């Protein structure tokens, strides 16, 4: 039965592909790609696009490294771009020569993880901070104390997304350390703080866009765009930028070295640097995109949204973290295991 269905789906996929000029296989984070954007690209270029989801950078990297995946495009976070480059997995598609290259905002053109934008172009960027339902707690939300020294009103109603490195780095910064620290005295404080704080948590789960929106969770470590989407369902949900330090990241679109549909992939990379298309990306996932001029095409409710526009006085607290080296990683995993035992 299952086989029959798989064949039927495969058959449909085949016939679909036969109708279009070519194919493009995108490997991207789940719930992150605007279907209208894909439809527009398909219609303009007569290409059949297939999107496959992943839920973490490690999953994506492992699958791509294993080979035989058939993907043309992947969207790694900035901290993973150099790992991909180091493993020789990405292509240099001549991005600076592309028609829409000039649209990349000046600040995102020459970035540490990809100087001169040889391999990647911006998809979206955002922050990892806290989301709080104002109906449950009306105090200051710009602090990691929300989940590390949980106020009484929020006890037992807090979630922490199980994103190990982000959560660990937030906790380390809250305790006054540097991200990816290997300072054991500091890590011991962090561990003790986390273990103590966990007693007040309800869960360590993903899917906060829905759960914050419907009131199952009153506060969470969360991403800004996800919080934005939750707020659209529930006006009480607010986003906080922890003053002790929060995480800034950018997801970047890259073409894989073993891509089968290189021309279509290049077209897509150029396509998303067009301000109107970049605005479509943001309109769906609710993160900023790093393309100049896209604001003009954004939905009205995105303009000046508190989840997107970082308050001036909190800008300095944002940290671009790199992927932690093995030593820090092992320490983080040990603490994480201890936390979830």
């Amino acid at each position, binding site marked *: 039965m299952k086989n029959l269905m798989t064949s039927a789906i495969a058959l449909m996929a085949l016939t679909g592909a036969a109708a279009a000029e070519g194919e493009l296989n995108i490997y991207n984070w789940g719930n992150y790609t605007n279907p209208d954007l894909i439809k527009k690209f398909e219609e303009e270029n007569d290409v059949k696009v297939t999107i496959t989801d992943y839920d973490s950078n490690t999953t994506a990297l492992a699958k791509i490294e294993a080979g035989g995946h058939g993907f043309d495009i992947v969207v790694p976070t900035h901290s993973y771009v150099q790992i991909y480059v180091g493993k020789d997995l990405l292509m240099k598609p001549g991005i600076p020569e592309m028609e829409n290259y000039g649209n990349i905002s000046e600040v995102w053109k020459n970035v540490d993880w990809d100087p001169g934008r040889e391999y990647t172009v911006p998809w979206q960027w955002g922050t990892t901070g806290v989301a709080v339902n104002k109906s449950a707690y009306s105090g200051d939300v710009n602090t990691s104390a929300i989940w590390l020294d949980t106020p009484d009103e929020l006890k037992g109603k807090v979630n922490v997304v199980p994103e190990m490195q982000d959560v660990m780095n937030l906790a380390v910064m809250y305790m006054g350390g540097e991200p990816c620290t290997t300072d054991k005295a500091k890590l011991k404080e962090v561990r003790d703080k986390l273990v103590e704080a966990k007693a007040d948590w309800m869960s360590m789960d993903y899917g906060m866009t829905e759960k914050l929106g*419907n009131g199952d969770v009153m506060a969470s470590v969360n991403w800004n765009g996800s919080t934005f989407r939750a707020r659209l369902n529930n006006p009480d949900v607010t986003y906080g930028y922890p003053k002790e330090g929060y995480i800034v990241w950018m997801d970047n679109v890259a073409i894989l070295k073993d891509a089968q549909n290189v021309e279509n992939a290049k077209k897509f990379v150029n396509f998303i640097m067009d301000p109107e298309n970049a605005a479509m990306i943001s309109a769906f996932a609710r993160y900023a995109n790093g393309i100049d001029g896209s604001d003009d095409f954004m939905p009205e409710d995105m303009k000046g949204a508190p989840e997107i526009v970082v308050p001036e006085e909190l800008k300095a607290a944002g940290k671009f973290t790199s992927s932690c080296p093995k030593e820090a990683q092992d320490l983080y995993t040990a603490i*994480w295991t201890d936390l*979830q035992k």
Partner: protein
Amino acid sequence: MARSSPARTGWLLSTPALILLFIGALGPLAIVVVYAFLEPGEYSGVVWNFSTEAWFRVFFERDIFDDTVSMADAHLTIFWRSVKLSLLTTFITFVIGFPTAWFIATRPPTQRAIWLFLITIPFWTNLLIRTFAIMEVVRNQGLLNSFLMWTGVIGRPLQILYTDTAVLIGMAYVYLPLMVLPLFAAIDRFDFKLIEAGYDLYASRTKVLRRVILPIVRPGIVAGSILVFVPSLGAYVTPRILGGGKNMMIGNFIELQFGQGRNWPLGAALSLILLLIVLVALIAYVRVTSNDGGRDGQT
């Protein structure tokens, strides 16, 4: 042709099965074994250097703060929780499954097929969807809490979601059919005249159950228990969704090593330990049933 012995033909005919077995089961297992003796790569994957570090780390931990070596307390806790929850799941499914199987086996033959068919209906739906359905039932504003509040039994919602209770409910629901089916098969072959004989010999109801029924259907009980216990032990989706991820089970712990933990050898070693636990359970199963084989086999 003329010289080919039956044994040889037998081997020849089973080649496809053997190849499948090798490619599908033994090959991947061999890879897991090999990986468990390698060093972890910097960002996922493995480095091809022989190392027993992973095995050391399964059982012991070097304290990250003062470098003393001690038993891996966190790992033991996680393993113990998994075994405990799996045993409880097995017990719950048995308590619910036995009367169910008995009920089906005592229906007229024409109706049995319908009841069995109903038991298999949950298998039509993906595990993930069934788990989310349970989540809808147990969440604070969910069916169960709304109903209890409506009847006035409780004043405010019970926090069931994100607790071990939710995990137990979820696993018992998901694995119940795996208990009912082997139990049914055993009870179906049971000769009900034996119960009458028991009563004739002045046995009480509990004595009939304990001394006549249970020993005879024991292979079914053991088979059902194994079928429930083994997948419960490796359960991954249910604890993650219903347990809220605060406390890991073995499955989640192994996933952590292959994912965010970036330590594949440790993940591989942990998988083999899990395999070992299952193996022990299966050996126990074979021993229990083979002792009984003579009494039960031919009925």
